[in-house]
């Protein structure tokens, strides 16, 4: 058997068993293996391996989809369109947590843009509301929208004052 032809056929064998081959190439392989026992054996082995591919355990797909729904990627991507919002809200959370009086602190500077790593958070360390806007829950859970807007305005004033 022509070794060059065998080499060509063996290049194609994985695509034959995976069903990723043109009719023309498939015809060439089928014609060759009728006469070449070596390539026929390789085709059979590849077919056996492909047919017995391990399959993921039941439940893995659901587990992965759950983690997509509940973990950081969604948070990260949702937060992107409103980076300023995020940084302001995050600063507010930090300030509240530390008991800092924000409006009376002219030294507080808020970044207008934050680098990507600043809002990439570890799984489970973040809360997010359904609309994706509120980064500081549950601390802000009890605030009305009006109260929240007012808080933001104060923060903006504090920020502008601080950087002036």
């Amino acid at each position, binding site marked *: 058997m022509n070794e060059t032809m065998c080499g060509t056929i*063996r290049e194609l064998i*994985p695509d034959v068993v*995976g069903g990723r081959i043109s009719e023309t190439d498939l015809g060439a392989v089928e014609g060759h293996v009728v006469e070449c026992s070596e390539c026929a054996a390789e085709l059979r082995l590849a077919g056996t391996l492909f047919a017995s591919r391990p*399959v993921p355990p039941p439940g*893995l797909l659901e587990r*992965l989809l759950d983690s997509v729904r509940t973990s950081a990627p969604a948070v990260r991507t*949702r937060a992107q369109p409103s980076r300023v919002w995020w940084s302001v809200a995050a600063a507010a959370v930090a300030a509240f947590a530390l008991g800092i009086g924000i409006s009376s602190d002219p030294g507080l500077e808020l970044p207008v843009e934050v680098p990507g790593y600043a809002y990439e958070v570890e*799984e489970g360390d973040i809360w997010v509301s359904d609309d994706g806007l509120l980064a500081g829950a549950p601390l802000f859970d009890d605030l009305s929208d009006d109260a929240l807007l007012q808080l933001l305005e104060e923060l903006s004033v504090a920020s502008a004052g601080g950087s002036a």
Partner: protein
Amino acid sequence: MRDEERRDGDPSDLELVQAGRDGDESALGLLVRRHHAAAFRVAVSLVKEDDVAQDVVQDAFMKAFRALDGFRGDAAFRTWLLTITANEARGALRRRGRRKESALDDAIEVQSGDPSPATAAIQSVEAERARRKLEELPDKQRMSVSLRIEEGLSFKEIGEIIGSSEGAARVNYFHGIRRLRELME
């Protein structure tokens, strides 16, 4: 559960990645559906145990999705994900201080215990024997054979995943498949 095939008219992986970057959760879900089975096969090929492989796959997807901004569109998402998966699997092996050279023993352990869903897929004696012999190949040969035959990846893509050149991936594949045929005789 096998990977869901992409049908005509379905968005490409790159389109899904772009949508995922913009916060489209369903796009990320579709990427999971398309590629989780391949990721599982890469993971279980290296770590040998279904439970560990599942953790590896989950970590790999989460890592990939967190790093979507860094994904270069010139690489296939599947190759990129499988590279991350292989790295995660190696990390899991390192953490357990386990040597992969014990692959054959591990394979026999899996066979002798309760049949896992992965091993349940092995339906014929010949297939079972082929898979056992596959486990005897060195890592790079085994991965090259699996990725070429089971996932249909090119040698260039396989090289990226196993950390070799395209040429070395090709050599590993052909050495692996020849060795496997010898072992099966």
